């Protein structure tokens, strides 16, 4: 079993298993509902076969082993188009939070439900008034006996319409509490009375993001993640996972789409060579950087502000890829109602979500270049 924890051996066994167990999505239905059904189906199969459990601790239903194994599973699953990158990446931002911040019994009870596709969860962070400035969030939690009562609104909550639970950031403390000590996280059941979920219409016509309203929602104190005031640290602790394992999966997906583009233009002659080369250079640079980040994480180094570089490279490469699609496949985005259109439009958000390109550059200037305050 120890050999399986070696990355090349792990990958070859996983690939052999995938070759024998066809998890290809059923053709013909590209709706969000179909993606969600496929997502749950894939997780169940991978969990039952053990693949979804490697790289997670045994205390939370995992099978142990290095975290890099999760990146390999994600690369194969998302890179082969078996699951969509969006839903799949949620595992990587939700599970570490539960393992690090939930009571151990709660994590042991809940994490297997997520990893096995019994349930989906969502992450309630952003608010209408708190985007780049997340620490200014105003959804309030007030203690009332052994419960906390929550009021407020979240937005950009991915897949909330399919979720049974939510990792939610709220404001606690009084007016004198500094922002970064005034945020507290809860693990909230979305069937609690007082919660309304409303999908947002977006420009790419996929209702992935939701608004979630909280109206006197009572949550047991035992569902607090960490202690009062731990919420900001919880949010920051997510970055290493979001920007290592998640990014690696997403890059695998972009490579698979680049393969598809090349398939469509390969008979065209030399006119597209420069454009293809530029997209390749951007993706290759990103993948090299992400590999180095994965290895630093695997060596036990603490990831920090330098992952803002990974984020800038990812957003730039993604937009470069889809700009190239639009340039080399004239009309494919504008005249044909197909996946290139959806993906092109979605890629416009790459410099906005997960910390805008401007916020990343601010972090790089302040923390990596030591340029002092603005």
């Amino acid at each position: 079993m120890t050999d399986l924890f070696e990355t090349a051996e792990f990958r070859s066994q996983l690939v052999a298993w995938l070759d024998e167990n066809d998890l290809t999505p059923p053709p013909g239905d590209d709706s969000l509902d179909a993606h969600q059904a496929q997502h749950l189906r894939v997780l169940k199969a991978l969990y039952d076969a053990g693949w979804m459990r490697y790289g997670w601790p045994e205390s939370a239903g995992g099978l142990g082993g290095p975290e890099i194994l999760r990146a390999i599973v994600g690369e194969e699953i998302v890179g082969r188009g078996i699951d969509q990158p969006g839903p799949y990446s949620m595992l990587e931002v939700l599970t570490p939070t539960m393992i690090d911040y939930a009571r151990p019994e709660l994590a042991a009870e809940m994490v297997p439900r997520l990893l096995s596709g019994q349930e989906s969860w969502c992450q309630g962070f952003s608010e209408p008034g708190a985007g780049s400035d997340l620490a200014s969030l105003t959804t309030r939690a007030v203690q009332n006996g052994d419960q906390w009562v929550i009021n407020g609104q979240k937005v950009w909550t991915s897949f909330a319409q399919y979720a049974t639970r939510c990792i939610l950031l709220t404001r606690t403390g009084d007016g004198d509490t500094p922002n970064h000590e005034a945020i507290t996280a809860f693990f909230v059941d979305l069937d609690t009375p007082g919660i309304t979920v409303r999908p947002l219409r977006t420009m790419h016509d996929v209702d992935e993001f939701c608004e979630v309203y909280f109206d006197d929602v009572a949550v047991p104190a035992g569902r607090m993640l960490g202690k009062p005031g731990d919420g900001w640290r919880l949010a920051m602790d997510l970055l290493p996972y979001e920007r290592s394992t998640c990014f690696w999966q997403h890059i695998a997906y972009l490579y698979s789409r680049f393969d598809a583009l090349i398939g469509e233009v390969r008979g065209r002659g030399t006119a597209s060579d420069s454009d293809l080369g530029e997209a390749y250079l951007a993706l290759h640079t990103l993948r090299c950087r992400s590999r180095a980040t994965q290895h630093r994480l695997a060596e036990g180094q603490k990831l920090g502000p330098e992952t803002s570089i990974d984020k800038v490279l990812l957003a730039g490469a993604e937009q470069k890829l889809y700009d190239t699609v639009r340039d080399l496949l004239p009309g494919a985005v504008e005249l044909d109602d197909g996946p290139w259109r959806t993906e092109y439009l979605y890629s416009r958000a790459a410099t906005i979500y997960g910390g805008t390109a401007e916020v990343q550059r601010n972090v790089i200037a302040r923390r990596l270049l030591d340029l002092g305050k603005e």
Partner: protein
Amino acid sequence: MTSTSDTDSLELLEDGLRKTMLSTSGAELDAALAELGWADMLSDMPEQAIPLVFRLLGETGSHASLLNDIVVIQTAGRELGEIPELPYAGGGWVVWDYDGASDTTLGGLPLRRVDEGDPVRLVDARRALGWWLVGSARAMLALARQHALDRVQFGRPIAGFQAVRHRLAETLVAIEGAEATLSLPGEDNPDLTALLAKAAAGKAALTAAKNCQQVLGGIGFTAEHDLHHHVKRVLVLDGLLGSSRELTRKAGAGLRARGSVPRLVKL
């Protein structure tokens, strides 16, 4: 894993090389590096020596004809001490030769055009030039960063302005990205790995030149300031062994011929 003593001795070597490069350049630097054991470094520890020495050439703004050694070592039928013809952007050829060096080459490198050349293998040479370009880019970024902190306009250091900060941040992103491509082992496809690394490094260096020139404003345009040495150096080095633009197009042609994207990077 590098042991502590290895790390220490590499740091000592780096200090020694840096001092030497800061005090001398050109043929004298070649002689000094020969004294310091360059030939042994190249045969015993090329994986450490090439990135270190070439990055330092960039950072110090010095130059030496070490690229010739790298090319002849990798090319069958050539020997150390020979001066190979080197491809230059646009299908041209140059030699790196102190004898009969032209004084027309930008920034004072002893390069001159020749009519034609014999085929050479460029894997390690492109990586070496990539490290040189990245070193130059880091030198430019250091100059621009210090200027941004020192230069006061509108009553405060210009480092406080977001437009300035973001140019410098963009430069660091380009450099770090290029270094990642240069650090990839690349066993699966050494030629393509080196080609992409040289392309990324050239692009990063040109990005650094553009952004740092802008941040340095008027002083960076004078010959009194060091910036122009680095700007000129990266313009020349980008063209040597194929420009970023040409190599990128070549990589694109390779994708089209192959019909899929090589995954050169594995976990």
